[in-house]
Each structure stands twice: as structure tokens, then as C-alpha cells.
């Protein structure tokens, strides 16, 4: 009879080999980032499975689009037209302010901010491991997505690109336990670090002294420190401040503004890093 014991190494040796190889893989991947370059190929190899897994939701989307009634479409059209009108009014004011801001910055000899390159991506899959909060989007290295590119939705910052495949890439959300984002309070410009907690609607601010002026309802925007996220995009709203004097720091939690549990369309923002040459064209700002 052809059993496992009659060919190849015994089961115990196989187990020992598998466990040792797993531990080596874990250490190599987690501690030394040994697979950083080959991850692209591994992800590309596995992406057919992802597209396959995404098929039912794509089909549902298509059929629901086909089945939308005329009234619904008219209603949606109306709503979007209203929204465009409101937005374009705000845009007119914004453009005046922008040109004024540029002039003032030139007067101060500060570098003028160039608009960043933007790209719309669509959500492909949500990572279902309960230990991490990641999503997969349908743009990859072929569309010039790069590592640690910022990802936004219509309300605020969603996260950053953590792995790039050739046609899709993986985004780590700001609420993941391994993620932290530098922010500042929009009200008084105090800087904080907002770390993820692993639950989808909560961030915590680390190491906040009791004396700091922070209140419930404060808007936190990205501070641009660390050169990962561009400056000034909304991140979260402070929803709880507990100043317990028996603890070394105040415990402050915030709710992300991006609707992380119902993402559909995302905006990829090219940062200054990618276009370094065009960002610093103003001369004479270097030694000021």
C-alpha cells in the first residue's frame, strides 16, 4: 500500500522542515524585509485569484446598474448636478485664494506648491484577516503607483500603499495597528501622532500631555511631517478626551473622517517626492 510512510521523508521530518522554513520566512520577511522586491512578482502571480474572487461583486454591480430604474437615475443626476454647482462655486473662490496664496508665498520666497498628480482607483478587495486592516485597489506599478503613496476618499485620508503589484496594489488603512500618521490640530496647529487601534472607527493620539489644549470635536489634518502624506488633508475628528491625572498621558481617541468601512472609489495622490524637480523651481529659498 502506498502510504505516506513508504516514500519521501517521514511525517515528523516534514513537519519539522515546514515549521523551520515558516519561521525562516517570517523572520526574513518581517525583520529584514527580504522579499520587498519579489513581492511585486508574487502579488502579480496571485492576482488572477483576486480578480476571480472579485467577480461576484463585479457581476452584482453590473446587474444592479442594469436594473436601476429611470426615476433613480434622474434623481441621482439631479443630486449630482446640484453638487457640481455647489462645488464649482467653492472652486471659484478657491482659485482666487490659491493665486493669492501663491503670490504671497512668492513674496515670502517660500516654494510655491504645485498641484499633485491624482489618479482615481477602485476598491478591489477588502482584506478579511481580523488582525490587519488592508484593502486592495485596482491600480498598480503599470499605472505608476509607488510605495507609500497616499490614498484618500472624498472625506479624508484613507491610508498608504504598502505593496505594489503590476496591476493592483495593497493599501494599509490608517486604523491598522501597525500604522501611525503625523497630524496637527486645525484649531491651534499642535502636532500629534495618530496611531491605528485595529478597530475600523478609532485612532488614538499617542503621548499627549494633560496640559495640551485639545477638545472633543477638534479637526485633525495631516501635518506633512515625515514626507509620506501631503499636508492639510483632513484625517479625523477628536471624539473623546480623558484626562486621568493618575496616568502619564491623556487618553485621546479620534474618529477617522474617511468612511473606511464603505470605500468604493479612492484617490491616489502623487506626492512631492515623485516630482521633486518641479516642486522647488523658486530660486533663492534654500538658505532662508
Amino acid at each position, binding site marked *: 500500500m502506498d*502510504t505516506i510512510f513508504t516514500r519521501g521523508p517521514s*511525517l515528523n521530518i*516534514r513537519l519539522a522542515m515546514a515549521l523551520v522554513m515558516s*519561521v525562516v520566512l*517570517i523572520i526574513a520577511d518581517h525583520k529584514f524585509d527580504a522579499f520587498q522586491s519579489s513581492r511585486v512578482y508574487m502579488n502579480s502571480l*496571485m492576482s488572477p485569484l483576486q480578480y476571480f474572487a*472579485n467577480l461576484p461583486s463585479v457581476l452584482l454591480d453590473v446587474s444592479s446598474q442594469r436594473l436601476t430604474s429611470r426615476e433613480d437615475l434622474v434623481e441621482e443626476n439631479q443630486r449630482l448636478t446640484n453638487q457640481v454647482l455647489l462645488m464649482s462655486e467653492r472652486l471659484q473662490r478657491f482659485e482666487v485664494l490659491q493665486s493669492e496664496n501663491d503670490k504671497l508665498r512668492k513674496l515670502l520666497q517660500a516654494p510655491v506648491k504645485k498641484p499633485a498628480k491624482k489618479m482615481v482607483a477602485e476598491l478591489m478587495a477588502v482584506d478579511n484577516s481580523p488582525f*490587519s486592516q488592508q484593502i486592495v485597489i485596482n491600480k498598480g506599478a503599470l499605472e505608476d503607483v509607488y510605495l507609500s503613496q497616499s490614498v484618500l476618499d472624498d472625506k479624508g485620508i484613507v491610508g498608504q500603499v504598502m505593496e505594489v503589484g503590476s496591476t493592483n496594489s495593497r493599501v494599509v488603512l490608517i486604523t491598522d495597528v501597525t500604522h501611525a500618521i503625523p497630524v496637527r490640530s486645525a484649531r491651534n496647529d499642535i502636532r500629534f501622532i495618530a496611531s491605528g487601534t485595529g478597530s475600523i472607527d478609532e485612532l488614538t493620539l499617542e503621548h499627549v500631555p494633560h496640559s495640551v489644549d485639545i477638545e472633543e470635536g477638534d479637526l485633525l489634518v495631516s501635518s506633512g511631517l515625515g514626507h509620506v502624506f501631503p499636508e492639510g488633508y483632513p484625517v479625523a475628528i477628536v471624539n473623546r478626551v480623558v484626562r486621568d491625572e493618575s496616568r502619564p498621558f491623556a487618553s485621546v481617541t479620534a474618529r477617522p473622517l474617511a468612511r473606511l468601512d464603505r470605500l468604493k472609489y479612492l484617490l491616489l495622490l502623487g506626492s512631492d517626492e515623485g516630482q521633486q524637480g518641479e516642486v522647488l523651481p523658486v530660486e533663492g529659498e534654500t538658505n532662508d
Partner: protein
Amino acid sequence: MIRTRHYAIPLTILIALVLQIMPLPIQVDTYRPDWVLIVLSYWTMALPHRANVGVAFISGVATDILLGTALGVHCFALSLAVYILAANYQRLRNYSVWQQAIIIGLISALYHAVLFWLQHLLTGIPFQLNYLWPVVSSMVLWPWIFWILRKARRQLNIS
């Protein structure tokens, strides 16, 4: 026919991988059963000379890449779980499907415990009790998977 016979095991594992990563609403997602573990368990118990620790290791690498975990985490847990089944396959085969479901539940609990410990070591995640819902759903799912895969195995005459 010969082709499907040869590719049946990898094919079922691929289907399990697809089911494992299929996007679901967040309310249902918590209860997602461990598809890969269940399918591997069936093949290990039915044909331990075809599928055992090596196949589990390879499926683990695929799971790690698809789920974006540190490479090796799922390999470790899957190899360990499949080893326990492969070492006791003769005894487990004689159990009724319901007893097997309980064993699968225990194996799945071990699998999730190992996954949690490894990831806790790596990233310091806190434990939440909903991490253990897949244990229940895997137990419920086992009889059906057992029935379907046994039917497939007998029809295609895989050995």
C-alpha cells in the same frame, strides 16, 4: 477525465483560496469559515499520501501572499494543523461526520490561536473574541464540504 483527476486537489485548494479572499459585507465577514483549512483537512484525511504537510505549506504561502500577512505565518499554522490530522488519519476516518466536525472545530481553534500568537509576536495586536467565530462556522460547514468532496473524489476516482 485523466486531467481533472490529476488536478482535482490543486483545483479544490484554488477554489478554497478564492472563497477565502472573496469580498463580503463586514457583518458576514466575521463568520467566514476557514475554507483552505477545511479543504486541506479533507484531502489529508482521505488521501494522506497525496496531500499532507508539503501541500499545506504551499497553500500557506499562497494564503500569506493573498492576505498580505508576513510570509510564513499561515504556512506555520496550516502545516501544524495538517500534521495533526495526517498523524491520526486512520483514527479520524472511522469517526462519524459529526465527531469529525468537532475535531475540525478543535483544529480550527488551534489554527486561529497559532495565527494570533504569531501575529501578536510580530505586531502586538490585541485579542478580540470575534476572532474565534470562524471556528464555529468551520464546524458547521464541515459535513457539507465532506459530502461534496467525497462525492467528487469517488466520481473522479482520485486515489
